[in-house]
């Protein structure tokens, strides 16, 4: 079955730092519940939440020796906050899961199919 990556788009408006603890817990519980639903439906492949964008390091190994730099690879305000990889029969099914995931994690979700040749 085709696989889709559901990427959680963080755009800096989330203010997790200042959010009350209860609200954070509620979001966490909703995300867990969504992930459980994906598993129960047999659509789960893999998923993960990522540490904040400040935790990223870029490695460029194209030259003689690798160059290591602090920070994200792009200056974009938007960054990947986490992802689910699911299997779905078609785009409509993937979009339906994405809509539920988006509601659970309070963020937009980008849906992108895996290249079947490498999948």
């Amino acid at each position, binding site marked *: 079955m*085709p696989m889709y990556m559901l990427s959680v788009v963080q755009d800096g408006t989330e203010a997790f730092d200042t959010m009350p603890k209860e609200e954070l817990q509620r979001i966490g519980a909703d995300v867990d519940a969504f992930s459980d639903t994906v598993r129960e439906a047999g659509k789960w492949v893999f998923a993960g939440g990522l540490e904040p964008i400040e935790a990223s390091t870029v490695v460029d190994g194209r030259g003689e020796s690798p160059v290591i730099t602090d920070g994200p690879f792009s200056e974009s305000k938007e960054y990947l906050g986490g992802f689910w990889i699911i299997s779905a*029969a*078609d*785009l*409509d099914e*993937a*979009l339906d899961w994405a809509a539920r995931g988006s509601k659970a994690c309070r963020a937009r979700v980008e*849906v*992108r*199919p895996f290249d079947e040749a490498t999948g």
Partner: protein
Amino acid sequence: MTDVEEVFRAEYGRVVAGLVRRFGDIDVAEEALADALVIALERWPRDGVPPNPAAWLTRVAGNKAIDRLRREKVRDEKYAEAAMLTDDTPAEPSGPVTDDRLRLIFTCCHPALAPENRIALTLRLLGGLTVAEIAHAFLVPETTMAQRITRAKAKIKQTRIPYRVPTGDDLPNRMAGVLTVLYLIFNEGYLSTTAASVREDLCTEAIRLTRQLREASAALGPQPEVLGLLALMLLLDARRPARVRDGVLVTLPDQDRSAWNADQIEEGHALVRQCLALNRPGPYQIQAAINAVHTDAPDVSSVDWSQVVTLYDQLATLTPSPIVALNRAVAVAELDGPQVALAIVEDLDLGSYHAFHATRADLLRRLGRFDEAREAYGQAIALTENEAERAWLAGRQASCLTA
């Protein structure tokens, strides 16, 4: 257009939709149908058009597709499997709907495709227009339009946009999306920024596609908004012959009503009555009803303006927007006078919309505030691209000078 081409265009959507279902691939379907056209162009003029051209084209194109797939020795197993299918009967119908065109239009109008790509794909696959014709109608280079269509088809394939009629809660939303695409095609012709006649063909094409949708969606039960959109298009299109005179726009009150297309008006009114009987109002139905009030009046003085305002109130409840409020104000001006209407218009945040300035200008002119009217006409002209409309606005602006 030759007879063969006309038949081909009329049957294109039905045949290509069936081939897409059978072979599961839009490109395979299109190429096979193009092969079939070559044979039709050779045989039909000689032997006559077959009694059931759609069946003939389906059979010939189906054989061509199988030939081609065998010849190309396609490695992909799915294609090989499809090529071995010799059964022409529908695969598994999804739900009660069996019209392949309906599945295909939902694919073409899928929200995951860019709006301009939905339009192009719908005209190509359901309308059977050539890429060159679509490019011409939208005033873009043919290569641009070809890329647009190729990209849309690639996205359908890569992301697996399904070839299926949406079910349950998805259906109303997705049907609304299909209707939006059809109305955009119509408006591209009706409100075109140039007077090129090829763009008027888009009105005819949009009406044909909406009729096709009405037919194809019959198995879903009555779809009042589909009927409403068809009625709206017919009632607008009926007035097309009277809308422009000597390159100048003629507004509704000044139009020669005898030039209106009586058949289209009759059909539009019948559809509006049908919608009323179904009693599930929606935005297109209400807009059609508003136009029916206009086309119902034998002359401009007998338009039932209170009815028009009531309908705009209903429309504003369903789809509140400043544009609806602006159009409502035009009717209010007839009912309660320009002063009341102007007060409504002044409150609207529509400064970048030419119709806002044109409406405001007209109300100011009627109130004798000519200096302000002239300025507002100027703002409207600056924001209008349509030549006929600019000419009309300029005429009005000049009349404020002599008054």
